[in-house]
């Protein structure tokens, strides 16, 4: 299996050869930042296109098919439009907070994006409390959303932001607990070790029943966390026009839009890392030939393939289920997901203590 650290180390050596160590570190940081932002925007564009296509297929339509072959350039055209649009100055808003909010949202999601292990040796942030850092950082985004709703000085925005706050804080619990369940099973918080530990079998198979329950809960809570349908009531178009980003225009709106799609990618990426073995190929014990063939597929394809499947499932949720009311949403979390999650954690602890897992 190809190890991307060969390339990164080669770049490191090259830079250290021509400049002092401190300068090399700075240059590397800048390069990594640029690569992350580039990957971020390219993935967001791809996701917007995929979302529109998948949505269309679920509605028996073809979706974008005019710009470029099969409409692949549609989201690029949309991006250009978004970039050259005017950012409208609105009276009676808190200018500073209004301007700050989209940046908080996007910074939070870029930081969470940096934690994902894309392939073997291709991970930016990796330290001993990695998954903990990821949860912490991804919930900063909600501050941005609340700020956006508050600073807009608009009751629809504020209602949307408050709904979003209530929703995200509630579902953060479920996400945290289901991640905790998997951490109990794998015994580490470091993302790279989490992935390495799945070389002999994905955690979803290793942890059997409790892992499967945690997986389903994670998917539900993750969908809620990204503010996507059926949990999209913070921006319920029919009642709140667009919720917390009603007053935003131009690239400020674009930031919210990008962050929303990237959060979808991050949720799918974390699901892949925790449950589906990250970039590890699928191995069936005993099938040597099969395992060898699987090893030939580069790790980056494994990661993106699994993430793609997860994203499809989340989109499938969105285009199947009707939107929940706020009380139904909170009831689902506090009366169903949370108790099940706590019981499931207990079950996982029992499984681990008595070594009932594979």
């Amino acid at each position: 299996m190809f190890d991307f650290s060969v390339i990164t180390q080669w770049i490191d050596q090259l830079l250290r050869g021509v400049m002092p160590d401190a300068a090399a570190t700075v240059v590397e940081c800048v390069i990594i930042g640029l690569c992350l932002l580039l990957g971020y925007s390219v993935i967001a564009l791809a996701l917007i296109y995929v979302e529109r296509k998948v949505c269309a297929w679920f509605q028996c339509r073809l979706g974008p098919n005019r710009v470029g072959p099969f409409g692949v350039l549609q989201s690029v055209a949309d991006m250009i439009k978004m970039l050259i649009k005017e950012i409208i100055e609105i009276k009676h808003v808190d200018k500073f907070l209004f301007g700050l909010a989209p940046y908080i949202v996007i910074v939070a999601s870029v930081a969470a994006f940096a934690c994902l292990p894309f392939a073997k040796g291709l991970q930016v942030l990796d330290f001993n409390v990695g998954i903990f850092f990821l949860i912490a950082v991804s919930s900063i985004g909600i501050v941005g959303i609340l700020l956006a709703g508050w600073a807009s000085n608009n009751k629809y925005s504020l209602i949307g932001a408050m709904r979003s706050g209530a929703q995200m804080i509630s579902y953060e619990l479920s996400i945290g607990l289901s991640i905790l369940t998997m951490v109990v099973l794998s015994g580490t918080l470091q993302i790279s070790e989490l992935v390495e530990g799945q070389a002999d079998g994905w955690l979803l198979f290793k942890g059997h029943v409790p892992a499967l329950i945690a997986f389903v809960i994670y998917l539900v809570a993750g969908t809620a966390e990204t503010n996507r349908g059926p949990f999209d009531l913070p921006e319920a178009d029919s009642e709140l026009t667009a919720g917390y980003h009603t007053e935003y225009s131009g690239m400020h709106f674009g930031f919210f839009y990008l962050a929303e799609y990237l959060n979808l990618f991050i949720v799918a990426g974390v699901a892949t890392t925790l449950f589906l073995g990250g970039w590890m190929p699928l191995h069936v014990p005993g099938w040597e030939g099969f395992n060898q063939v699987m090893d030939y597929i580069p790790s980056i394809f494994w990661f993106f393939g699994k993430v793609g499947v997860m994203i499809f499932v989340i989109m499938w949720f969105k285009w199947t289920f009707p939107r929940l009311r706020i009380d139904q949403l909170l009831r689902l979390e506090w009366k169903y997901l949370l108790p099940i999650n706590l019981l499931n954690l207990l079950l996982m602890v029992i499984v681990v203590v008595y070594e009932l897992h594979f």
Partner: protein
Amino acid sequence: MNKVIRYLVNFARGLRSLLVGMRATLRVFFRKKTTECYPENRKTLTMFDRFRGELVMLHDDQNHHKCTACGICEMNCPNSTIRITSEMVTDEAGKKKKVLTEYRYDHGSCLFCQLCVRTCAQQALGFLPTFEHAVFTRGKLIHKLNREGSSLAPKPVAAESPTA
């Protein structure tokens, strides 16, 4: 205890209904798409039968129409889209008769409500399912529906007894 059982039953039922919904949408996902790629398929694209594209006066192969110039369609038209001009003609038997000279139809102000077709006592009118009607000047939208040299179809010779 009853409450716990009800909780569990409700939970299972809810989960099942969600899965049924997902199965239904997945079927639609793989179904043949209904989108018409319009300019590419304009050779083969046909509208459904009941589509109301433009009003026409039905003519048979001997260039006969059925319009008696009674003006019911003109009166019923909510937009005054139809303008009928007729003249009085005395035939050989000395009978006076109204004869259609021009049936003007303004496509641009038509509502496509089909009241003219519905109220026509002679079934002289119909709608065509054509749809490419864009032009650059409004004048081009005014059509004369009775063809050049057409005339009223002669009454069928004793086809049915008038008492029917």
